[in-house]
């Protein structure tokens, strides 16, 4: 394989304006069809407009994936895979190794913005790049090697078939680099076999999981991106201010009652907390009761102490989150696993009826290694288990029997999905397509949204704001999320969670925050401080004066651009409904009887009104676009009449 030489940044006639601080200053463009890679400069104006990560990616998708009046599909060579980071990555603010993957994903065939952490952003920026934009498709399997100015598209044959951890082990060994000297983000067998919910995993346990981004990478025959820790310098406009702000954020995360448990235990407390609200998804939504399980053993301290656990933090992070665990007992004794996030405990655990903590921890890591989205994995496996129990699936169909909580069996199915063997081939399409194919009872039991997104690992029948967010989203996962201090945005601190109008107003009111955070190169958990603090950090890094108002406006701009791309992909408002099971009414547990379906239309109507989008066609209204400073988009969406 011949190395690809990196061309020098384009020379512009007039002197370049000074870069804002925090930025590496270049985008790395990789064309796999042409086997070429080159650095593209981007301007300070573009940086202020698009920031990075989600914002930059949204614009690239909108600009570069149009095809006639529609859009290229996820498996088209012209699809873009943007692996972006942002201005805070690599800096001393906690949790700043950020990766945001933006692409047309395989599950919804529409846009995605999904993030992970680790050291991607750190290593990439120290090499001199703010994002990687991958286009085209390689003829043979390759991996991308980045070492400062040396960029090579290398043969990846010897890594094929390896899971994500094995891939990183092998690359570290072959390149002679240990630990965080090398950051590797790769796909596992699932991505290689175009499993529609395949994910991208990096640095042992950090997964950009949504919308089959791993399948997109697989279609491009890009096995991995290996980034040597670069040697270049990052400068902050106000380094002292930045360090001060980083310390303030750290203080807030450590001491604020709403963030403290996250600081101490990451997302582990979610299991017990959500179970109390009826939002822990149990056995494919067939119940909301934890039964005879000792929930005390699921409290965060005990959950963690059950393992020999070790810190495995992302760049500059002090959260006691992201741990490695060594399993102490049982059949998986001695195995090193990634301490599951709440989502892992739910997707590889409760959703499929598994409550043996060691086994769940092991299975969760199996999904990371394979590498699929653990949420969709849960919805798929739970659906199969329910089907076998109820008889609308048979042992013959599946190939073997699988009972609730059978972790080894779930792994067996995972490996079949991974390689699209037997029944695994159908399941690899995701639960929406699989259930639609089978029809009948099977169709009624599957959990998904009309657009095809996998809900997060909650029982959203008790969390309507997340159901609404997931269903209306243009990015195949929760597009908004709610902030820690929603009062900061002039929103009420508490609402009635089962009042559709209040829910819709809250979701609409928070809109934009997630896109802003995902553009910075920072973790979604270390941003659980006041938005004002994040804006301060951004200002200190870049030298801009960035306000909360600008942040929200930026986020809404990004959401509007994603919406435009999603519509081009055919993701229209008529698809903004939960599946039958997803939108059903819990019959037991704390949220029993709360019927989201009864309020769905009203909730969506209110949301559309609040966000200023056209309820029928789904487009952001001309006035909304004008307010966001998106006159150009208005012209493109509405034509001259706007």
């Amino acid at each position, binding site marked *: 394989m011949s190395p690809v030489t990196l061309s020098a940044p384009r020379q512009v006639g007039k002197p370049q304006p000074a870069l804002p601080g925090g930025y590496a200053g270049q985008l790395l463009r990789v064309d796999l069809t042409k086997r070429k890679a080159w650095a593209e400069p981007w301007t300070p104006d573009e940086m202020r407009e698009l920031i990075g990560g989600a914002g930059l990616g949204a614009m690239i998708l909108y600009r570069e994936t149009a095809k006639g009046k529609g859009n290229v599909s996820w498996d088209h060579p012209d699809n873009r895979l943007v692996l972006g980071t942002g201005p805070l990555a690599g800096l001393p603010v906690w949790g700043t190794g950020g990766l945001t993957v933006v692409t047309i994903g395989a599950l919804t065939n529409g846009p995605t913005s999904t993030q992970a952490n680790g050291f991607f952003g750190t290593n990439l920026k120290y090499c001199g790049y703010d994002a990687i934009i991958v286009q085209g498709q390689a003829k043979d399997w390759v991996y991308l090697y980045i*070492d400062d100015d040396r960029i090579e598209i290398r043969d990846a044959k010897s890594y094929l078939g390896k899971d994500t951890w094995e891939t990183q082990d092998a690359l570290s060994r072959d390149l*002679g680099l240990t630990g965080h000297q090398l950051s590797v983000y790769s796909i596992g067998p699932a991505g290689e076999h175009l499993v529609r919910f395949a994910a991208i995993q990096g640095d042992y346990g950090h997964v950009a999981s949504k919308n089959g981004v791993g399948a997109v990478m697989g279609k491009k025959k890009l096995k991995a991106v290996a980034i040597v820790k670069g040697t270049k310098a990052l400068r902050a406009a106000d380094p002292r201010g930045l360090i001060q702000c980083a310390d303030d954020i750290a203080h807030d995360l450590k001491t604020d009652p709403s963030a403290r448990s996250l600081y101490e235990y990451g997302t582990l407390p979610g299991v017990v907390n959500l179970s109390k609200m009826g939002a822990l998804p149990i056995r494919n939504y067939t119940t909301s009761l934890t039964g005879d399980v000792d929930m005390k053993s699921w409290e965060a301290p005990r959950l963690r102490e059950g393992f020999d656990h070790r810190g495995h933090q992302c760049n500059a992070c002090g959260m006691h989150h992201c741990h490695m665990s060594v399993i102490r007992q049982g059949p998986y004794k001695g195995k090193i696993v990634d301490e599951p996030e709440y989502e892992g405990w739910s997707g590889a655990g409760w959703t499929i009826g598994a409550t043996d903590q060691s086994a769940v921890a092991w299975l969760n890591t199996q999904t990371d290694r394979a590498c699929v989205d653990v949420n969709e994995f849960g919805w798929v496996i739970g659906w199969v288990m329910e089907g076998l129990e109820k008889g609308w699936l048979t042992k013959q169909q599946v190939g073997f029997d699988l009972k609730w909580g059978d972790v080894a069996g779930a792994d067996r199915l995972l490996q079949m999905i991974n390689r699209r063997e037997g029944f695994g081939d159908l399941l690899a399409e995701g639960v929406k397509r699989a259930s639609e194919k089978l029809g009948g009872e099977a169709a009624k039991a599957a959990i998904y949204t009309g657009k095809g997104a996998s809900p997060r690992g909650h029982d959203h029948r008790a969390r309507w704001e997340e159901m609404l967010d997931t269903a209306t989203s243009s990015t195949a996962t929760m597009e908004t999320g709610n902030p820690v201090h929603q009062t900061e945005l002039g929103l009420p601190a508490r609402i009635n969670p089962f009042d559709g109008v209040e829910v819709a107003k809250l979701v609409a009111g928070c809109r934009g925050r997630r896109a802003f955070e995902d553009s910075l190169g920072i973790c979604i958990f270390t941003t659980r401080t006041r938005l004002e603090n994040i804006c301060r950090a951004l200002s200190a890094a870049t030298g801009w004066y960035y306000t909360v108002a600008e942040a929200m406006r930026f986020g809404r701009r990004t959401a509007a651009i994603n919406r435009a791309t999603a519509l081009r992909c055919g993701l229209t408002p008529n698809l903004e409904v939960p599946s039958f099971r997803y939108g059903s009414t819990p019959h037991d547990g704390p949220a029993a009887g709360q019927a989201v379906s009864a309020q769905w239309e009203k909730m969506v109507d209110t949301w559309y009104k609040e966000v200023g989008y056209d309820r029928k066609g789904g487009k952001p209204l001309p006035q909304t676009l004008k307010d966001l400073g998106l006159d150009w988009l208005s012209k493109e969406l509405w034509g001259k009449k706007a």
Partner: protein
Amino acid sequence: MPRRHLIIGGGTAGMNAMRTIREEEREPSEITLVSAEKPYSRMVLPYYLDRSIAEQHVFTTSAALLAQWKVKTHVGRRAAALDTKANVCTLDDGSKVEYDDCLIATGSSAVRAPVPGADGANVHSFWTLDECRGVIASVTPGSHVVMIGAGFISFTILNSILALGAKLTIVEVAPRILPRMIDDAGAEVIEEWLRAHGVTIRTNVKVTKIEDARGKKRVKFASGGDLVCDVVIMATGIKTNLEWLKDSGVRMNRGIIVDDHLRSNVPNVYAAGDVAEGRDLVSGQPALHAIEPTAQEHGRVVGANMAGKDVAYKGSLIINIVEVCHLDAASFGAWDDAKADTVVGAKRDRSAYRKYLFTGDRLTGAIIIGRSGDVWTTNDVGMLKGLVQTGVRLGRFKDYLKAHPFDVKTAYIASGTAGTLLPETVLGRPAKAPGETPVAV
């Protein structure tokens, strides 16, 4: 305790000896220094050559400091004879210095290949300050320099010659470069790197003659293919300065044979640095190490012993490092031991190369090549030195190191090397900072 110390040679060994005497002594003593040149550091000359430092910077002491140390000086004089019965040293001007004990640290000089024209105009050696000045006067931007010899000395000035804007050709009689510092495979990595950086290298060529050619020099080879150039630098080796000791009764092999206190067969005569055949740390056998760190350690050990302390020397480790065009190459200990259990690691795309030589489960020699900017290279350079220096037993981490030649740190730390090193000092006490040396008692 001896009251009159004579130090012959003002290089690294001599300077360190004098300083250590002043640090260690409890009673006043006299020190006399005989030095052919005003003391300077040879290590620093390449940086003077490319003008990154001023000439003043090369000197390791001053008249004022020597006066503060109460050192009587005979600078510009050479020792001509040593009468070890009478304890008298005769200098080249006929004057005599009496002593109670003395240190021979007369170092080495450059030798030129015996070819016709080797002593002609614009043919230089590069060893002393004077020779350095000669090269400075003749190399100008754009001039073509032919360096004869691809050994350590040439490589220390290679960067400087290039920095001066000269075009450089290196010729070597051996089949490859750095024959006494790096193995074949390592030499190949460096050669490749140098060629990529515009240095012409011709190996396996024997110079037969150097002629004048209309204001230029013509270097002729046995195999033909003459080179015409502006300047010739002969870096064809060094020899120890020991002829003057012929009739002294001091026992010599290739150098002066010394015991573990660096004493010669004459109990009040010590030797240090290039001229001393002291103990080699790895082999335990006497060896001649013409390197700076050995001179420094020798000097300090002798100084302490002259001041009445009883310091036994564990032995010196061969260590060499050279940087060429931002590529580092270093070797340690018995790097060419054919009997050793050997492992090699290479990353060609990063010009990185490692070779580790084990005896049992101890690391007894190593070669490391890597880019200077690569901090992990520097990290590993030191750790490999530590492993060879301590000779810690690697146990199961030997296999680890063999399997992961680029992960030195795990083996180094897990085998407790740092802990072994912490109590270790050359003089049995913490070293003093330069400038901390007290004035004479």
